[in-house]
């Protein structure tokens, strides 16, 4: 047996671990904000018991902040749920724009830590492909990770997907710093193994500053 299954298993676990750790960190932050607002409410209650007047607008502000954080946590958990279920079916029909948007959302904290903005996903129409959803998410994440490294702090990475004659493609753009040197580092053996199993290819357009991920319409065809 070749090394490919091991490389892919390792890449998959690393991907799952990184995303899970990032989600847990975000949820911890949400809980910390709710904790401080509950604490403030408790402080105000103690002050009220001592005869101090409480401004109702202040209480309203705290209630709104807690509700906002609950909405934020709900969004994080919905994405976590979608991500976890992407390993349910080895092969499945998906909308590429939805998958790209999911990875964009899951990568938000990684981007923010690097001082990078991820542009909204640009797509004209739903782009349906039949593929291996978890492996696809993994390769999108690896391409995006490399794109963010290449872009550098203060930059915006563009994301787009579209149908092609025989499948679909994802573009990671606005990568002005792409050069011969950086291209030597990508794709690595890990990305190559994923591309192979997905029957996909990565092209790098130095002039346009783009990484292009080409996918077949149907991996089973």
């Amino acid at each position, binding site marked *: 047996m070749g090394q490919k299954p091991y490389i892919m298993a390792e890449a998959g676990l690393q991907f799952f671990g990184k995303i899970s*750790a990032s989600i*847990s*960190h*975000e949820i*911890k*932050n949400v*809980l*910390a*904000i*709710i*904790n*401080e*607002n509950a*604490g*403030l409410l408790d*402080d105000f209650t103690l*002050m009220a018991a001592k005869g101090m007047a409480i401004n109702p607008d202040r209480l309203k502000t705290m209630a709104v*902040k807690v509700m906002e*954080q609950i909405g934020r946590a709900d969004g994080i958990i919905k994405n976590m749920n979608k991500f976890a279920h992407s390993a349910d079916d080895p092969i499945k029909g998906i909308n590429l724009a939805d998958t790209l948007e999911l990875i964009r959302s899951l990568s938000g904290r990684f981007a*923010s*830590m*690097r*001082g990078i903005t991820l542009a909204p996903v640009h797509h004209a129409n739903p782009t349906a492909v039949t593929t291996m959803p978890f492996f696809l998410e993994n390769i999108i994440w690896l391409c995006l990770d490399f794109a963010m490294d290449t872009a550098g*702090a203060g930059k915006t990475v563009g994301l787009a997907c579209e149908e092609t004659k025989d499948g679909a493609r994802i573009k990671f753009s606005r990568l002005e710093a792409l050069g011969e040197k950086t291209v030597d580092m990508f794709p690595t053996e890990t990305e190559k193994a994923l591309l192979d199993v997905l029957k996909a290819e990565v092209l790098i357009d130095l002039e346009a500053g783009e990484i292009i991920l080409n996918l077949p319409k149907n991996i089973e065809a």
Partner: protein
Amino acid sequence: MRVLLVDDESELVSALAERLSFRGIEADWSSKCYDALTQMERKKYDLAVLDMKMPKMNGIELKKKMQEKFPDMKFIFMTGHGSEDNYRAGSAEAGADYFLVKPVDIDTLVEKMNEVLHK
């Protein structure tokens, strides 16, 4: 006691600062590392409570920059990361005086602030 709280989650540090002020602690906050450094130029702080993971500059780097200008300043780190042991070791290595995991208990924070400043 004058304290500067720095965390990219502004909703967290603003509420924490208010709660500390109710406990007689003069607390200012910042959600950006570079703003925190500017704030320090205007006011002298005894202690900083820093999030370990922040955009552009992590808590350890920020502590180094703060300490270059104010060598006597004390530091408490906090993190939302689950891997407490790694961060406890990392923050100790970086010279933090104490380390807390989010969500932070206000009474523990105040107790540790007093301990750190009086040790």
